[in-house]
């Protein structure tokens, strides 16, 4: 371990076959509906070869690259949470009649996933969700088993997106921990290969079945250079100094009203966010009333029902919902789970229809604080 090897495109293809052979369901980036999403992969032919993405506030467009790179883009609308924390699942069923019933717990779906192309920000996002679902007081068995079974083929970003700010959040672009294998894609003149860092015994066992070479020093240096250049290309930045105190002390700041005039309360930001974990439950029965089921579904703090209490909603205004989302993400998350809830992936900026960008909003709140200090 701790040694780097190189594989070529065919090697990556072999890796997918090997993982398939080991019983993993291999998932990774692929093009669908003009976006790069995470779905089942059969071979490297399913990867978005020669594609990149243009991202900005409310903007996402696929573009052709001049090369044949396989990971030459940033993150899209999907995140790995859809596999570890499924958007919709049955929790249990019950059958009964005449005031008596029996509950049948759901059989554990312990699908073994191999994730191809996990970025550093996403590795951090998964570690953050771990704290919610397995490292706190209660454990979600489905998340736990899927998480423990998962195989991670991470990718060091070779290009930052227009809304990326992982450098500000200390979450990238270099993958540091938690991976089985970490790839850096290199396109050097006519040569197209991957420098592979092995991060676990299972990763090593896997690589034994894949044609590879020991990495040369210059290849490793080149890989390091790629990540360093990406770090210099961040589309956004965020000053996180005392950000918790800043938000806690500005819960009544007029900027929230300003944002609320633009926010559609559409919940896109929470759906694309790789750390947002909120869910709701739905009870359903069949037509005879003798069979009942309970389903869990992703939910969002932007919906009206989210805070319903007898008599009405606690957060009826868009302002209060946006404030809750952002204050949770950047401030109260720290109190709850010991880290920020934001990994700087930029999805919430890209997929916001009116292009609300909190890397622009936070400085507005911060600047007005500085001004108050000056005038007082």
């Amino acid at each position, binding site marked *: 371990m701790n040694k780097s090897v190189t594989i070529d495109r065919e090697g990556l293809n072999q890796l997918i076959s090997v993982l398939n052979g080991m019983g993993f369901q291999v998932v990774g980036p692929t093009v669908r509906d003009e976006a790069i999403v995470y779905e089942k992969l059969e071979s490297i032919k399913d990867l978005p070869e020669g594609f990149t993405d243009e991202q900005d506030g409310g903007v996402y467009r696929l573009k052709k690259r001049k090369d044949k790179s396989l990971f030459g883009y940033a993150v899209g609308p999907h995140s790995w949470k859809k596999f570890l924390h499924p958007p919709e699942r049955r929790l249990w069923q019950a059958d009964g009649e005449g005031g008596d*019933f029996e509950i049948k717990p759901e059989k554990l779906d312990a699908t073994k996933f191999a994730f191809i192309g996990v970025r550093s920000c996403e590795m951090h996002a998964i570690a953050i969700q771990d704290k919610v679902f397995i490292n706190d007081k*209660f454990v*979600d068995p489905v998340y*736990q*088993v899927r998480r*423990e*079974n998962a195989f991670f083929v991470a990718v060091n970003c070779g290009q930052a997106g227009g809304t990326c700010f992982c450098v500000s959040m200390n979450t990238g672009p270099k993958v540091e921990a938690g991976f089985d294998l970490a790839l850096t894609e290199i396109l050097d003149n006519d040569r197209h290969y991957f420098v592979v860092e092995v991060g676990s015994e299972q990763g090593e066992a896997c690589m034994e079945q894949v044609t590879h070479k020991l990495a040369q020093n210059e290849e490793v240096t080149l890989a390091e250079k790629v990540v360093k250049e990406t770090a210099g290309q961040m589309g956004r930045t965020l000053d996180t100094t005392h950000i918790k105190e800043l938000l806690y002390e500005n819960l009544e700041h007029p900027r929230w009203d300003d944002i609320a005039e633009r926010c559609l309360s559409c919940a896109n930001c929470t759906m694309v966010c790789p750390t947002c974990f909120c869910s709701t439950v739905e009870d359903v029965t069949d037509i005879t009333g003798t069979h009942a089921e309970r389903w869990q579904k992703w939910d969002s703090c932007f919906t009206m029902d989210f805070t319903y209490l007898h008599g009405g909603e*606690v957060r*009826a205004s868009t302002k*209060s919902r946006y404030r809750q989302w952002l204050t949770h993400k950047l401030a109260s998350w720290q109190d709850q789970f010991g880290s920020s809830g934001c990994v700087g992936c930029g999805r919430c900026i890209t997929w916001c229809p009116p292009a609300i960008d909190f890397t622009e909003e936070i400085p507005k709140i911060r600047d007005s604080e500085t001004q108050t200090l000056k005038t007082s």
Partner: protein
Amino acid sequence: MAGKMEPLMQSPMTPWPYRIQKVIRESHDTFSLNVVPKNSPDSMTFNPGQFNMLYAFGVGEVPISISGPQPGGKGMIHTIRDVGIVTGALHKLKKDQTIGLRGPFGSAWPIEESKGYDIVIMAGGIGLAPLRPALYALLDQRDKFGEIVLLYGVRKPEDLLFTKEFETWRGKYGVQVKMTVDTADREWRGNVGVVNTLVQRANFDPMNTVAMICGPEVMMRFAVSELKRREVPEDQIFITMERNMKCAVGFCGHCQFGPAFICKDGPIFRYDKVKQFFGIREI
């Protein structure tokens, strides 16, 4: 990273079957269900102030605080106001029928920590339900506490709960029980007005008092300010918070109140720890 593991426990989202051993009518819209586990009748412990998620077959699940029994009594009592679809379905259930139950969840009233103090209990409406087991625990060791005061406000006289027990609490245990109603007809001879007006009439040593409050947020706001006016220290005041709750185990995110998850950090909070967020509109 990949590894092998087999989870052994039942998901915390799956309810256990409980049998209703008694249904008690408490008032025109409020009833109590005393339940015991169908499978393991001995495995019930809870701390005063904790709550359970109760499931009515095919309808849904609601958080309900545990209102009894007295120490040594059987089962867990839940006092429920029939205000919605699920509580309405629970209201229709009869003795020996089944409900689903998850719990107990949440924080508890500080009983042990309050030994040597005077105790002021303030309840608004159904808020008396989670305070009753606290009273039972206090009275069980009556000599360990100083004055015990119960200040209880409801909208109308017919909303009063547990009144049969008040005489025992007064007579046998020397509890100062004071009640008030928001509006009353001619037959009512007691106090009229909001519950915080009773604070000034109660006899307790403010600096040496622990206050436990449960009721609507607006009632608790006034109660806290009245107690502070009498100089009860903020770190000796305990309040309860309520929010929408879907899971009770910190997964669903619905019950967040500032940095707290009401399900696992609450529902009972020491006032000074949440005062930064208490009373902020739409928080």
